[in-house]
């Protein structure tokens, strides 16, 4: 019973924190640019606001437009059930491992791309094409990173990886782990659609990737798609901070230590969010056909990490 409660708690922490991370990134960027910017809680208000608006759909659209937003939202939410915040007992850990996680996330991307096509407009297909290309190119590096960590911890089960990385695996293989984390950073940027891969703020047809697909979405559909993208970003940051670089405080002895663990998790996620936001400000978005170079660079990093670990 207690494990179930803890698992639920972790699940809801990840869900609850995700709009905040998005808000925090936005706020950081605004502050550094010299403007005040919207409140860090603005994404929560946005979701509530969008939920209350009616949906406008094209008369060319089909039932894909109705079900796709639900799937896009529910897929990262399910994956959030895999991830530990402070304890290795998670809600969904019985039903899949880290390889399955990659493919579950791909299911969301698949339906998001279909949603782009469903309106019959010119932007949707453009966005889908770009998104699928970027997602495909990020995949090999992602699997390579996952293989490295899976071999180091001798398991693909996320909870097991969490447990053994929390030991001293990270310090046993510092070279391999560092390079793998660098590769994972590239994958995170690609999957979460941040600068230098994709600019989440723009609506210019030359540059937008993710935004082009959801251009025709409105009301509850847009809210669901936004939830999906927030949670997905949080998932990648959690993977980064909690699974593959578990420097932090994990103790489930009593309520105070749990509280403190959650607090540390919160701090780590905020730090990562701020780092990514600062990275976004200092880098220019890559030209679309340079993205393959960036992804390939990530892949080579992952490859070196694998090679230094295995050989």
């Amino acid at each position, binding site marked *: 019973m207690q494990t179930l409660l803890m698992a639920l708690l972790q699940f809801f922490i990840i869900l609850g924190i995700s709009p905040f991370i998005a808000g925090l990134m936005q706020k950081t960027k605004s502050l550094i640019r010299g403007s005040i910017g919207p409140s860090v809680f603005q994404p929560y208000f946005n979701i509530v606001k969008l939920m209350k608006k009616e949906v406008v759909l094209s008369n060319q659209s089909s039932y894909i437009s109705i079900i796709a937003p639900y799937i896009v939202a529910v897929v990262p939410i399910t994956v959030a059930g895999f991830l530990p915040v402070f304890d290795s007992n998670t809600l969904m850990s019985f039903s899949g491992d880290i390889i399955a996680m990659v493919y579950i996330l791909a299911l969301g991307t698949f339906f998001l791309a279909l949603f782009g096509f469903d309106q019959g407009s010119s932007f949707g297909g453009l966005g889908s094409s770009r998104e699928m290309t970027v997602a495909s190119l990020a995949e090999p590096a992602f699997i390579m990173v996952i293989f490295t960590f899976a071999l180091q911890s001798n398991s693909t089960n996320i909870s097991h990886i969490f447990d053994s990385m929390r030991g001293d695996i990270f310090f046993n293989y510092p*070279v391999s782990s560092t390079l793998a984390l660098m590769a994972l950073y590239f994958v995170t940027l690609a999957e979460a659609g941040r600068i230098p891969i994709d600019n989440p703020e723009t609506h210019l047809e030359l540059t937008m990737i993710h935004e082009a697909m959801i251009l025709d979405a409105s009301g509850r559909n847009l809210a669901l798609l936004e939830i999906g993208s927030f949670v997905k970003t949080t998932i990648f940051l959690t993977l980064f901070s909690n699974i593959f670089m578990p420097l932090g405080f994990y103790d489930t002895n009593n309520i105070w230590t749990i509280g403190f663990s959650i607090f540390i998790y919160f701090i780590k996620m905020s730090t990562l969010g701020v780092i990514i936001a600062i990275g976004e400000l200092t880098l220019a978005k890559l030209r679309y056909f340079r993205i393959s170079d960036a992804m390939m660079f990530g892949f080579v990093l992952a490859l070196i990490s694998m090679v230094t670990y295995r050989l």
Partner: protein
Amino acid sequence: MFSDFIELIGAFVLVLAILQITSDRLYFSIKVYAVQSFFVSISILSIGIYSSSFDLYVSSFLTLVIKTFIIPYALFKTIDEMKIKREIKAFVNITNSLLVISAIIIFTFLLTRYINIGGSVIAKEIFPISLSIIFIGAFIMVSRQKPITQLIGFLTLENGIMLVATSVTYGMPLIVEIGIFFDVIVGATMASLIIHHINHDIDDMDATSLSDFKE
């Protein structure tokens, strides 16, 4: 633990060498080279502290001064004076170059499994890492069109040699190292001069035009 640290520094040098491949701007390449040299000098310094050898302090200092500041500065100046176009032209595009690089890395790592270095080695993994850097430098020389990028390839290669020399064998004798530094400086200067002349004589910054001279 110390070997891990040295290996990590070596890995960063390797990553920067790969970053060199991905760059398509000359300024960026030179900056990457400067940072790479900085890491090499850190690596040499830490080995110097570890083995408390004075020679290594000197060569670390020389690396820092010459490679991190003087050579990049000279290259920047050459580019500005020559008004060289800042794009890098290459025979092999970047994605394919990276594929080649991954093959090189796999190859060197596999190869070094069969080499027995012998003696006391500070960090085992440095050897394949620096061998990869040497090959990457050579690959840059082969695949890039402009003499100045070929020069950068040569300098990268030299950094790899420096890394392997210090980390595997506690450094070469100081006199040899100083000789190498002079070689590098002279090489860089000569290359700048030649570049200047090529630019002046045939109005083109492309080493492929050299093949026009064959009979």
